[in-house]
């Protein structure tokens, strides 16, 4: 029962496609030299990014045309959730790449289950919270029947991601879950309790893992050790700062010449800022702002609670991840390996983001007003 009552949100669609195309260009610019050096082909990363962009757009259009309410089935939600959970456990039995267990290979295609985990959490919480928010149900603030099962599964997921180790993505999962619970009506005392509980958790996760501690120290004092742990941050700031108002020109970045680590993935925004300057950097920020605005608008106008929670989860996923990445690149936060949605090189991330955006666009075209009209 596909109901085409309104058009999908044009602003959201245009912002998403623009970010993807800018991403493809920047991935090429940032990776061409590295690609030629490592693979003998300047287009190595660009071609893979375009391939995944193709997959992602197919998934997005599929989702636009699939009524989101058909996702509200326990079978589907829980199956997806547990498949991802199994994959997250499975990566520990596979080879390490970059000293981490992040990749799950199926044939020639590598997936990062941690990316899939974000969608799994959103879908699960949207389904579960909608269930609990129904009349005569337990409500959000029931510890036994709502919070324990909701947070239990989410924290299990996040915990597995932390072990990969991928603190950034697990933090992301927690942020999404907290935002969804918050909007669903979590009472003040639980919020306070969670905040208090978070302090020692973050303390142990940071201070007792030496590289994270050093990254935090490097963030606080980047000049103390510019060639050591402060190197990444310093190089990122130099890239952004030397861009100035108009940038050094597309493809002209110098910082990508091995000064900036992960130039085409986590620090692609630094290359963009260097090449396109304040104008380019602010424009990308504006596109993410448009995404967040239209996403929250869709959430606000969603015809049911499931759509509302789903839209909120997807919007927070994209917006918060973008802002965390920018925070790292601009030196507002300690460095954390987290890609910039739509722009960074990385198939899984792009695929997940575009699929989610497809769902969001479907929600946006089935607004409350449209039902009445």
């Amino acid at each position, binding site marked *: 029962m596909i109901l085409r009552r309104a058009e999908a949100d044009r602003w959201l669609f245009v912002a998403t496609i623009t970010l993807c195309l800018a991403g493809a260009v920047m991935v090429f610019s940032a990776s061409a030299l590295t690609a030629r050096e490592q693979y003998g082909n300047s287009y190595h990363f660009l071609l893979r990014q375009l391939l995944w962009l193709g997959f992602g757009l197919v998934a997005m259009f599929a989702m636009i045309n699939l009524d989101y309410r058909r996702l509200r089935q326990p079978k589907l939600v829980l199956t997806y959730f547990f498949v991802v959970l199994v994959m997250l456990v499975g990566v520990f039995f596979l080879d390490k790449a970059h000293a981490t267990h992040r990749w799950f290979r199926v044939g020639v295609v590598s997936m990062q289950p941690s990316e899939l985990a974000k969608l799994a959490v959103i879908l699960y919480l949207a389904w579960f919270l909608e269930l609990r928010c129904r009349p005569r149900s337990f409500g959000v603030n029931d510890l036994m029947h709502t919070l324990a099962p909701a947070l239990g599964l989410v924290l299990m997921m996040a915990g597995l991601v932390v072990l990969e180790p991928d603190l950034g993505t697990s933090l992301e999962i927690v942020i999404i879950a907290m935002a969804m619970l918050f909007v669903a009506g979590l009472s003040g005392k639980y919020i306070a309790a969670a905040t208090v509980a978070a302090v020692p958790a973050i303390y142990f996760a940071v201070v007792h893992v030496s590289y994270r501690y050093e990254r935090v120290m490097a963030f606080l004092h980047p000049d103390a050790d510019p060639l050591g742990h402060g190197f990444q941050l310093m190089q990122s700031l130099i890239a952004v700062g030397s861009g100035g108002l108009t940038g050094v020109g597309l493809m002209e970045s110098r910082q990508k010449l091995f000064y900036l680590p992960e130039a085409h993935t986590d620090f692609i925004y630094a290359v963009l800022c260097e090449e396109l300057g304040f104008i380019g950097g602010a424009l990308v920020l504006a596109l993410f702002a448009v995404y967040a605005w239209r996403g929250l608008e869709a959430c606000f106008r969603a015809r049911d609670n499931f759509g509302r929670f789903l839209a909120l989860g997807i919007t927070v996923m994209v917006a918060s991840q973008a*802002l965390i990445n920018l925070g790292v690149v601009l030196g507002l936060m300690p460095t954390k390996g987290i890609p910039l949605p739509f722009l960074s090189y990385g198939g899984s991330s792009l695929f997940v983001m575009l699929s989610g955006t497809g769902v969001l666009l479907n929600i946006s075209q089935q607004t409350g007003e449209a039902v009445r009209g």
Partner: protein
Amino acid sequence: MQVPGMDFRSPQIRLLIVAAALGLWTAAAVARLADLQLLHYSDYLARAERQQQRIVEISPKRADILDRNLQEMAMSTSLDSCFAVPAELADNHLVARLLAPLLGLPPEEIATRLSSSRSFVWIARKLPPATVARIRQLNLRGIYFQKENQRFYPKRDLAAAVLGYVDIDEKGLGGIEYQLDGRIRSKAARMFILTDAHNRWYESADKTPEPGSSVILTIDENIQFIAEKELATAIDETRAKAGTVLVEDPSNGEILAMASWPKFNPNAPAGSPPQARMNRAVGALYEPGSVFKIVTLSAAIDQGITTPDEVVDCQMGAIYIAGHRIRDHKAYGLLTVSQILAHSSDVGAIKIGLRLGAPKFYEYIHAYGFGEPTGIDLPGENRGLLRRVENWTPVSVGSISMGQEVGVTPLQMINAVSAIANGGLLYRPHVVLALRRASQVEQEPQPAPRRVVREATAATMRAMLEGVILSGTGTKAQLDGYTSGGKTGTAQKIDPTTGRYSATQLIASFVGFAPINNAAVTILVQLDSPVGLHEGGSVAAPVFRRIAEQVLPYRNVPHDIPVSPAKLRAARRSQASEAADVSDFDSAQLTPAASSSGQPEPISAGVLPVSAPAPTVELAAGDGISIPDLTGKTVRQVTEICVQLGVNPVLVGTGTVQEQSPQPGAMVRRGASVIFQFGRPLLRQAQLRTQAQFHKAAR
């Protein structure tokens, strides 16, 4: 849209809170972006450039140094230097082995340099073009070339002490090259290399340097040549250890020639000992001896204490001062003050000095510029030794009266005598006439002269100094055709081991000027430790004469007394022979014998043979350089072509190339000398005409 069981107000507000949180975060990001890219743009740009760019200093192009007739004394040509970008090299040791035989360096040394972690290393600088071509043929990755400038002194050791020299980076290390380094060298001659984080070189840009200013000297290369030639002859004859000749224009303080012996070749400064690179005229102190009596007597006359005709008892050669007995070099009885100067009586000078008194005497010594730098535009000037009058001992006045207990530089001495020659004015001596930048000539400003003695005093002194030459110790300084004045000096050197005056080590000197009225030149000749004949009057005075008799006609100074018939005949003969041989008019001067013959020099103008070692032209099969025909080329063109070819040009004369040896087309080995004879075919006729008219007038 009411859904029962859920509090609606709350989720909407909470949604707004989430939106507000995202909005704040976004605002913070925008603010930070603006902070980095707009407010601190220049800081980060500087940091980026610091790590991305390697700046390599390349030898800047130095502007020419010209003599007062705009003849090149120092010029720059360009040569290729070879450098490596170590990160781009495939195999350091292979590259080192390939380059070693071409550069004549041990392979290990090259390998060490290539294994540097820097992004840029020089392998060899300023290479001959043939070597560059061979390295290029190897087509090695990571080996590059950069054009660099090479200083060249076409006149070799001529005026080397004035010009100075440069190091491999074209930085001035002596003389004018050092003094005006910042103005001669071009600004910001740098090569920018952009490197990646692995120190690989991927782009470079030469910053176009701003050209430096050419320096026009007061030195006249012809007078300089005469001075150096006569100094060399005198050194040869007297076997002196060292010597100095200065020629100054007394009317303005311009130094026309400044010659030091020993000398050095600025093209290869490392090949000579440091003392040879010293400019003795400004840096070597000596006790002037009797020459200083000029100061003593002029001060007394200026003060009205004595007159030239006053008779003084010279006490038969001995005087007691403060219990010390000072002996004269000869026992004189009654002498006039003029005669005291003419015969250089120590006792007479002491008595006049004592009458003058220490404070007044000191005042005049100071006024003449002793004990302080003259302010000449050359480095390494010595201020001299002059104790303050408060520190004088009772013997001091007497000692200083006859030129002891005081240390002067040759430049201070000649400048003081110039003040007598020009009527009592002390000019600041200088060697820089003007600076030229992009055809705009900027005169070097000179301070106004300072009056030392009254004009009448100077005139009296000139007459007395003429007496020295006519009937005193300086008769060997008598000129043919010109009046002259001067003073001899023979001073004992202080033996550095005993601290006492040495009996054998002397400094013989002569300072004089000509003609007596309207003096055109002041000339100082100073010889350090001549062997055998050692009095200033017998060894230095003849050098003065030989130089003056060449320089005065060259400067077109009219004769003020008759020229001796013998000299006229010689002049006519040389003129006739010159006219007969137009293409090689100064060939006679090329042979060193002509200058040491003791015969009066033929009067010839604008002729500059450069003393050069015997040319070694060797032929070697396979490695020959064919000499092109350079007839009609200028000094600069010839120098550039020769540097490119890799042969050593020996430039003789001024003007354009008239002849060359070996002949065009001959094959010579690398580094061989090729002699180029310069001349001015058009100017020559005019010169001969002027000379002929001049001699007619003199008759």
